[in-house]
């Protein structure tokens, strides 16, 4: 007797969609005392639910062994998501979503989970196919989270001041690109980039000096440790007093924040070259600078890039927080603090989205350079065969 292995996620999806057809789609309108909408009123969502039942039942039996099946599941889920959004906004369910609606979302969740799971485990020897699968997973996951956010905010009618829907944030983002561009220019291009370059660059040079001069290592490293422990909230107003309202004071805060991680990592990295390699260089009568450039700095690169990655996110945080303490009337931190006061929460979220995008892109760029520069490192080399 062969045991039949049922696909649990598809089973959940099928049952949830079936129940969604039975349970009420929405709550009761308090004024008229009538149900706002029934499944039978909205053909789109009814079709989507029926599709989910069919697909769920079919794949419970078949299993989702092939990437093609996963594609079918995801297409059904995308159609379902579209119909759910349409039902929310076009049929007035927003704010009144009922059990049936949430069961339908649960069904979609099960489908998306199973579909992404299959794509994530997809292995192909063809680079193009594998890479598209690798890219699809985080995108699909991100889009699903945004959908969930949208549906929960709209379905429960969450007040905009508490949490705006992603669509509202997106609209605000698109409609105020000029303000966002000016803020980005002020905070990121001027303050973050210059602070990051000055902070990381000076720490790198100081690290080489510290490594060369023993008393600096004993004297400066503990001091650097103390500076890094300074609370940024306390330092920022002082920097504003010293360097003025414009981006220079923000850059100064970033320099303080990024200096120590870079210093410590570079000093550690400079000691990463093994005794054997140092002996090897000694047998060639290699001088200090020759050994530094040919052996010790290349060996330190993984550590240096580690610090550069840590600092890429620290720098943005530093700039935004520092802008809370005085700034000309432009900048991401300035915008966040003033728009919160004016209850324009969607604008705050648009700035947060901008910061997230800029931070991710910055980190990604540093990580990309790292991969190119230290492709020899064991953590990357497997990909080169």
């Amino acid at each position, binding site marked *: 007797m062969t045991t039949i292995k049922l696909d649990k996620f598809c089973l959940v999806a099928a049952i949830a969609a079936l129940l969604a057809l039975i349970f009420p789609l929405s709550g009761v309108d308090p004024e008229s005392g009538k149900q706002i909408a029934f499944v039978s009123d909205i053909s789109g969502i009814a079709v989507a639910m029926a599709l989910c039942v069919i697909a769920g039942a079919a794949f419970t039996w078949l299993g989702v062994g092939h990437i093609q099946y996963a594609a079918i599941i995801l297409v059904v889920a995308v159609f379902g998501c579209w119909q759910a959004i349409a039902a929310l906004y076009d049929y007035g369910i927003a704010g009144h979503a009922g059990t049936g609606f949430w069961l339908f979302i649960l069904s979609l969740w099960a489908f998306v989970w199973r579909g992404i799971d299959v794509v994530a485990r997809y292995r192909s020897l063809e680079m193009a196919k594998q890479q598209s699968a690798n890219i699809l997973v985080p995108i699909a996951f991100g889009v699903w989270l945004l959908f969930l956010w949208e549906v929960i905010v709209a379905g429960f009618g969450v007040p905009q001041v508490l949490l705006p829907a992603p669509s509202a944030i997106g609209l605000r983002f698109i409609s105020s690109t000029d303000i966002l561009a000016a803020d980005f220019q002020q905070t990121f291009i001027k303050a973050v980039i210059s602070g990051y370059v000055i902070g990381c660059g000076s720490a790198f040079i100081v690290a080489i000096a510290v490594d060369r001069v023993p008393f600096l290592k004993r004297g400066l490293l503990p001091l650097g440790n103390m500076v890094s422990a300074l609370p940024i909230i306390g330092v920022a107003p002082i920097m504003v007093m010293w360097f003025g309202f414009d981006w220079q004071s923000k850059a100064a805060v970033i320099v303080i924040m990024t200096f120590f991680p870079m210093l410590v990592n570079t000093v550690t990295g400079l000691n990463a070259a093994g005794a054997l390699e140092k002996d090897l260089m000694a047998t*060639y009568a290699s001088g200090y600078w020759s050994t530094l450039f040919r052996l010790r700095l290349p060996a330190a690169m993984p550590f240096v890039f580690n610090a550069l990655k840590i600092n890429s996110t620290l720098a943005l945080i530093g700039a935004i927080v520092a802008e809370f303490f005085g700034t000309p009337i432009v900048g991401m931190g300035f915008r966040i603090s003033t728009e919160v006061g004016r209850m324009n929460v969607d604008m705050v979220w648009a700035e947060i989205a901008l910061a997230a995008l800029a931070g991710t892109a910055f980190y990604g760029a540093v990580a990309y350079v790292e991969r190119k520069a230290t492709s020899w490192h064991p953590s990357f*080399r497997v990909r080169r065969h």
Partner: protein
Amino acid sequence: MTLKAVVNNVAQMPASADAVVDIQKLSLTFQTADGPVYALSDVDLKIERGEFVSFIGPSGCGKTTLLRVIADLEKATGGDISINGVSPQEARENRAYGYVFQAPALLPWRSIERNVTLPLEIMEISREERIKRGHEALKLVELNGFEKKFPWQLSGGMQQRASIARALSFDADLLLMDEPFGALDEIVRDHLNEQLLKLWARTNKTVAFVTHSIPEAVYLSTKIVVMSPRPGRIIDVIKTDFPKDRGLDIRETPEFLEVAHRVREGLRAGHSYDE
């Protein structure tokens, strides 16, 4: 062909003016928290030009330390040592020797070619010349065609051959090798021994070779230095007279076994097992 192993004690032979390495009453003591460690004591040794000298002995007998003193990676605390008539430090600064370590010590961010030409780069030799000499060195160890590969893409034996090519690339007359084949399997080791011997016969370099394998020492050397631990000292120097173009098959001849036996006796005499 007479395969007569002339076994005599070199320590009593007259000193030659052509000594590459001349060591007299050398001692080295490491100061540690547990008291002094006598790594080398009262070592006398001459290595003539064109010789292949093996240092053999149990772990901790100071054979690697002795090689490191010759290479100026370690400073002697007593006695005299001269390399080509000058101090080890001057010899190192003149790039008088190529050193092959126990591990390949190839830099992972450099291709094989750029690893092999690393010493030439440090010596500020022009790019064309570097590439030319790199090719020659790689050909000597039969690694031509692997120039653009990275160290981790090569097997352990190939990596060690690349490190030998690196030591050969700047054509130093003296080659110091510290158990270069210690981590390799028997077959690869035999093959590399054969190649090394051919290389030595062709280039007429002077080789100092640390090992703990008796067959390897006897097969490769013109002179075998047997050492014993605590304190590290030389207890026997055995000179052999196998032809330069010997093959691996001489290892079965009575002469070979005779020398191997004498080395074993020396090792046994210098080693007490009740420690």
